């Protein structure tokens, strides 16, 4: 009952105070092109010998703050009872091959946009310590964020491929320019895997395009075309490869360790938090929502990949001797859970998968960021040296514990309803692999418990370098992510005035993400408010 209540939208559409005060038909374009414009403009500001480095950081911060404001308006005014796309923009682009600049979001897209907004501002805060080539760094970071926003908002496969591929160059340059000792390996692996994923996405798109008559790349046409099961299967495999390189899933996870361990912190946050979630979002949008035969045929295969990814990540984290490497592998777990929810193909599991896009992104970014900050403050990444830090790092201890709890999906965390919905929803269609995923989560719990005990609550290692707790700035960026996880965990339906159904300012992520899911799952019939009266 509780799960059903969480999964479904509120039975009556209640307007949120403030709705309709401000709206713009370009709300999605603003979230994409404002960062691009600011990134270009930043390069025209004279900055002799880094004199205005702080100004660059402030510009990036306020740009992200502005985007969060825009996205909050979009979130606040989102019509939860409309099944289709909202905030749509459509202009012809390459007309003769059927390419349109078509943007739009449904509930899942809006959820992802909110996630991207939170991650965007967090990444800037996490990058405050950057000292070298500050202007170039924030230019690339803004371009990376813009490409993620573009991929989320895209409603044309060309636009999706454009922004999907556009993320590769800034991400690789950020790793190459500001990464740790293994930055070369990290960057080239990122280019290789993400490049392969982009190629797979284009092949899948082109196969759909050719099979549907070659008239349009618009998702409304392409994803609703009647394709033969064989073509659907080919497209499905290509999309799975694209998603598995980005999310990542075993065995296409080769970039994870180096990139999450050796990227600058702000970049790790963006990649773990929002850029990698695009993989699962692609599966939801292009496979589960469109290719019915292929998704049914490939569902067991995807479930196997998800289960193996979770178990593998937990085992590697358990055996790791480097805290950042362990966290990098643990960050794979939420992605596996999300994909498993989509593979189960039940309304409840898909709804859980959509919520897990948000919670998994935050949990992955939080565990990576916490491990990064902790190792930075402890001056070592070596797990044998990191021991008994809790008394000396109370803030980081709290955040680390919250991150691990979010990974495991314990109650009060936003990931709890997501994981519960996925597991309950999937036992019906994928019982064996649901059990395997649950076993993987147990392994993750063991891994997390061992690491937490050793690093935070073990016997202090007197040979270890001196440690210090998180600074105010670090507390802010970690706190924003932890706070978001707790907020959605405590108020999944949004806070309401006591005794009423009137939301105060947040319509509730559960209500937002529910819009459009009914369209995705064919057998799922949404409740009809009129029929219940």
């Amino acid at each position, binding site marked *: 009952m509780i799960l059903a209540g969480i999964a479904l939208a509120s039975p009556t559409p209640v307007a949120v105070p403030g709705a309709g005060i401000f709206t713009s038909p370009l709300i999605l374009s603003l979230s994409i092109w404002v960062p691009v414009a600011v990134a270009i403009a930043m390069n025209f500001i004279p900055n002799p010998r880094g004199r205005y480095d702080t100004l660059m950081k402030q510009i990036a911060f306020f740009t992200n703050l502005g985007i969060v404001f825009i996205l909050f308006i979009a979130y606040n005014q989102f019509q939860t009872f409309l099944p289709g796309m909202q905030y749509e923009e459509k202009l012809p682009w390459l007309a003769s091959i059927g390419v349109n600049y078509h943007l739009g979001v449904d509930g899942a897209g809006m959820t992802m946009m909110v996630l991207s907004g939170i991650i965007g501002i967090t990444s800037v805060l996490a990058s405050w310590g950057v000292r070298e080539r500050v202007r170039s760094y924030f230019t690339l970071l803004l371009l990376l964020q813009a490409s993620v926003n573009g991929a989320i908002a895209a409603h044309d496969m060309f636009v999706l491929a*454009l922004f999907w591929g556009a993320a590769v160059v800034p991400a690789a340059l950020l790793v*190459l320019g500001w990464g740790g000792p293994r930055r070369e390996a990290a960057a080239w692996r990122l280019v290789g895997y993400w490049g392969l994923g982009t190629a797979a996405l*284009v092949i899948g798109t082109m196969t759909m395009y050719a099979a549907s008559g070659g008239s349009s790349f618009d998702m409304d046409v392409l994803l609703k075309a009647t394709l033969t099961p064989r073509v659907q299967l080919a497209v499905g495999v290509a999309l799975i490869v694209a998603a598995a390189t980005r999310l990542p899933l075993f065995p296409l996870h080769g970039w994870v360790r180096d990139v999450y361990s050796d990227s600058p912190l702000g970049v790790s946050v963006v990649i773990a938090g929002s850029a990698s979630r695009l993989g699962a979002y692609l599966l939801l949008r292009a496979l589960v929502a469109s290719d019915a035969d292929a998704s049914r045929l490939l569902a067991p295969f995807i479930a196997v990949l998800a289960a193996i990814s979770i178990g593998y990540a937990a085992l590697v984290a358990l055996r790791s001797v480097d805290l950042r490497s362990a966290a990098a592998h643990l960050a794979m777990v939420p992605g596996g859970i999300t994909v498993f929810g989509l593979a189960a193909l039940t309304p409840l599991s898909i709804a859980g998968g959509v919520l897990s896009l948000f919670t998994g992104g935050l949990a992955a970014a939080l565990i990576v960021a916490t491990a990064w900050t902790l190792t930075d403050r402890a001056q070592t990444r070596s797990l044998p040296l990191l021991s008994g830090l809790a008394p000396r790092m109370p803030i980081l201890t709290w955040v680390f514990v919250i991150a691990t709890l979010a990974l495991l999906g314990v109650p009060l965390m936003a990931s709890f309803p997501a994981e519960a919905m996925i597991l309950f929803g999937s036992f019906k269609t994928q019982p064996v692999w649901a059990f395997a995923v649950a076993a993987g989560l147990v392994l993750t719990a063991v891994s997390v418990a061992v690491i937490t005990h050793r690093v935070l609550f073990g016997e202090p290692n007197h040979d270890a370098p001196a440690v210090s707790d998180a600074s105010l700035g670090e507390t802010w960026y970690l706190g924003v992510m932890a706070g978001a996880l707790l907020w959605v965990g405590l108020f999944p339906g949004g806070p309401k005035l006591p005794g009423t159904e009137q939301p105060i300012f947040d319509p509730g992520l559960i209500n937002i993400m529910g819009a459009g899911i009914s369209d995705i799952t064919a057998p799922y019939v949404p409740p009809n408010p009129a029929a219940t009266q």
Partner: protein
Amino acid sequence: MSNYVLVPEALVMAAALVLVLLGRAPRRSRRWAPLAATVVVAAALGVELWAGSTLTSQFGGALVQDRFALFAKAAVLLAAGLAIAVTDWSDEGAPVIGMAMILLAAFGVMVIASAGDFVGLWAGLELTAAAGVVLVSVRRTDLGLRLLVAGGVASALVLVGLAFVYATTGSADLLAVRRAAASVNPTLPLAIPVMLLLGGLAIRAGLPPFEFARLPVGLGASPLGAGIVIGLVAAAALVVAFKISAALLPLPAVLSPYLMVAAAVAMVGGGAAALATRSPRARLAYLAAGQVGWIAAGLATHYRTGLGASLFLLGAFAVAATAGPSAMAGADAGEFALAGMGLLRPARAAGIALAFLSLAGAPPLGGFFGEFAVASALAASGALWLLALGLLGAVMSMAAAVGTVRAIYLQSPPDESRRTAGARLPVLTRLSTGGAVALCAVLAGYGVFAYPIFSLADQGAEALGLR
């Protein structure tokens, strides 16, 4: 309006002649030559865009002005103008000859674009190639000779091919060839000359594995000379390939298999070689070869959307491959020659970076839009294997381009005492800075404002008689 159609050609040719004569004038009076040449090319481009939309034919059908000619001429004028503007003229051995030769090369491509028969195609191709030989010889006579010999082989192959096609169809007029081809069977005696013809064009375009002349020449020539060889000569060969492809439209069996193989080798080979090499100019040359492969792949689809997409990509290619080497100026000694360019010459650095990324097909630049359009044509024609190979090449190209962009923006500039002749910092002038900014705007705007450009390219393909 039809009287103005040849004004762009006249302007370009007149400017080239004046520049050649200016070579004898005192050095002081040549100071304004780059700016004047840029203005003339810009004026020619303006006239072309204004008057070029008129459909007409001149000299008894020997020159035809249609949408294809308009697009190709506009693209090549834009490329030549940007190359002249962005060139570091202090690094060119004979600046006025350089300007004259690039104008002459552009004129050659314009002749090909309007050519109504084999004579125009051949003459334009030879003119463009000859301009390249002259400019290369100014700095390196040995390389000029090498280019001349390789060009001679290419020319012979093209001539033999054209002669056999003429013998088979009984006409040198492209429209008549097309009509005659409809009644000719695709036989081996026809397929072999077509292969020779395409082989000659591949040598001209420097497609792998035929880059034996173009690459060393591209490396040893002056920046502008490299731009002509890598960009304009390749563009000339491609425009000839467009026209031949349209003329032999009823006989795809004698053309498409060769084009597909050439495209596959170029796309994969270009990407792999770009990834393997460390020299920026060699890398740019290989990236350009990979993109030529994409254009050839679009031609191989043998229908309007494919040719329209290829034509659209040709525009982005011509600009990046011609102006790219000029923007790099003397930085041909290795990656370290470009190190820190982003800090020292920001506008020029951005131009170089965008040229590399566009040739690699990285989004959201012109090259990506063109390659995606070609990819859609390949998918629609069922050539998914070629698409897969192209994407493999594109991934390698993108990795190679990231390497160069990294050197430009993320590496520290070399110590001034370590700067050799091959790592000389380009001289900063208002014209070169403006040219670099314009190059960036064109490469970025080509994709963003693709709607009218792609529509024109599509009309260009339609003008070739494709439906």
